[in-house]
């Protein structure tokens, strides 16, 4: 029998510090997701030359709260012939998998409080990217289980669409990541950010890889133009047709959390993470202290993420939805070969560089 000696040495202070960090990241994601709904409506209004929500509070900033209250007090309907447990499990899983990505993203450099160096990353595991990839591939379960448990053919069709779409785009996404980590040589996100601090951001070395990743991120988060699982003119509400009240709210909410965290992943992988552009972070840290530096870095990361969230919204309100065969053709016949080509070219360049540019 295997005897495991303890290598999980849990220190009380570490436990508390990680707990605080987890609570902060989760509340942060929820608040950002909440205000993304508001931002989405404002952006839509701007694109369509309207005013958007402006009744609840000044400029309508209390609108998300009003929406939340409305969703909580709505009547909850569980379809008679559905399996109740799975019907409830669906939105729970959607929320859970959406939140899990936040655990490996470095939200800033280490800070110094109470005589301790605290890393602003919940878990600096050395398989960071693979972890994200795993969680993304689990994200489909919430939709599939919910769609099936609704006992409605439109929900089931939506769930099937979601599953096949996510599986198809995962491939191209994975291969574009492989090209990225071939030259970074690490799977740890923290290490990747550190590399990008002193050198070029990865976007300049992997422009094609980034484009593929971006398109796949749109597909994985079910955002327009890839929102076929909930195409309302074909499938009523898609996988969440039968959902009402806060369970529906959770599905919609998990989409916004996914959007926020996939923006965070893209920023971390390709846009330097919390790196402050045009500034040497280490020098700045010496002059103003590590805590202020971490604060500024967090703000910079947040600003970059907001740009990406805006991009998501911009695309949603300008690009029409794909047809289903177009979606599959794009995934399998365009993105997959492109990402393979990207990987091959990257590999060849790395090999040439090792040979000092001789064939």
């Amino acid at each position, binding site marked *: *029998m*295997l*005897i*495991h*000696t*303890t*290598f*999980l*040495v*849990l220190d009380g202070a570490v436990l508390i510090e990680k707990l605080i960090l987890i609570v902060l990241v989760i509340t942060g994601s929820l608040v950002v997701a909440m205000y993304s709904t508001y931002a989405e409506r404002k952006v839509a209004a701007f694109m369509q030359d309207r005013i958007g929500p402006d009744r609840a509070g000044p400029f309508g900033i209390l609108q998300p709260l009003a929406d939340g209250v409305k969703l909580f007090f709505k009547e909850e309907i569980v379809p008679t012939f559905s*399996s109740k447990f*799975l019907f409830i499990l669906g939105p729970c899983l959607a929320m859970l998998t959406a939140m899990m990505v936040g655990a490996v993203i470095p939200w800033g450099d280490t800070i110094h409080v109470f005589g301790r160096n605290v890393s602003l990353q919940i878990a600096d*595991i*050395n*398989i960071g990217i*693979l*972890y994200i*990839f*795993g969680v993304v*591939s*689990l994200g*489909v*379960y919430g939709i*599939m*289980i919910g769609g*099936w448990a609704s006992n409605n053919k439109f929900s*089931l069709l939506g*769930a*099937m669409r979601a*599953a*096949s779409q*996510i*599986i198809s785009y*995962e491939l191209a996404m994975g291969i574009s990541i492989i090209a990225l980590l071939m030259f970074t040589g690490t*799977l740890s996100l923290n290490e990747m950010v550190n590399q990008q601090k002193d050198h070029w951001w990865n976007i300049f070395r992997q422009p094609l890889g980034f484009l593929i990743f971006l398109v796949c991120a749109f597909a994985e988060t079910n955002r327009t133009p890839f929102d076929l699982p909930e195409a309302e003119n074909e499938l009523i509400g898609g996988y969440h047709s039968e959902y009402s009240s806060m369970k529906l709210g959770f599905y919609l909410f998990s989409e916004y959390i996914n959007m926020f965290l996939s923006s965070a992943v893209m920023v971390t992988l390709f846009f330097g993470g919390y790196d402050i552009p045009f500034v040497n972070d280490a020098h700045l840290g010496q002059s103003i202290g590590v805590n202020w530096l971490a604060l500024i870095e967090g703000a910079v990361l947040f600003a970059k993420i907001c740009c990406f969230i805006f991009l998501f919204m911009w695309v949603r309100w300008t690009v029409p939805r794909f047809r289903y065969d177009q979606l599959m053709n794009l995934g399998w016949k365009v993105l997959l070969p492109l990402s393979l080509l990207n990987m091959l070219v990257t590999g060849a360049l790395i090999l040439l560089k090792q040979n000092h540019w001789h064939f």
Partner: protein
Amino acid sequence: MEITKIIFWFLTALALVAAIGVISSKNPIYSVLWLIVVFFAISGHYVLMNAQFLAIVNIIVYAGAIMVLFLFVVMLMNLNADAEPIKNVYMKMAGVISGLTLMIVFVAALSASEQHSTIIRPGTSVGLIENLGRALFNKYVVPFEISSVLFLSAMVGAVVIGKKDPIKRINE
């Protein structure tokens, strides 16, 4: 008890309960979901042994891709207790006998094996991706490449089978 031991026993119990759930559920959807729980418990064991790469690949490949396809198929077939065909008694007997034979093989193999008290030390890093990659591409490069060719041929085979017959389509 140390925390590692508590986690070990928890994961073991979870894996066993879930595995029993797989075979005892009436509804195939629940079976598939239990099987996903089993994969998670096994991945937890890998993490305990510091084989992080194996753990996450287990989740990506099995829980993330294969089980999604399983679920997909089971959902589309819409299997339930009413639609289940009545099985032949001989088939049931054959299932029981082959299952018992497998159990005997397992028991025999386990009882004949030496009792190892392998101690995994805190700093072990055999399962980390760097060491695994080095081992795969140096010592085991031939089997690795052969198995990848095998996968490739399986993929080509799947595409060929899945392709519609062009002549048939013209006739329609």
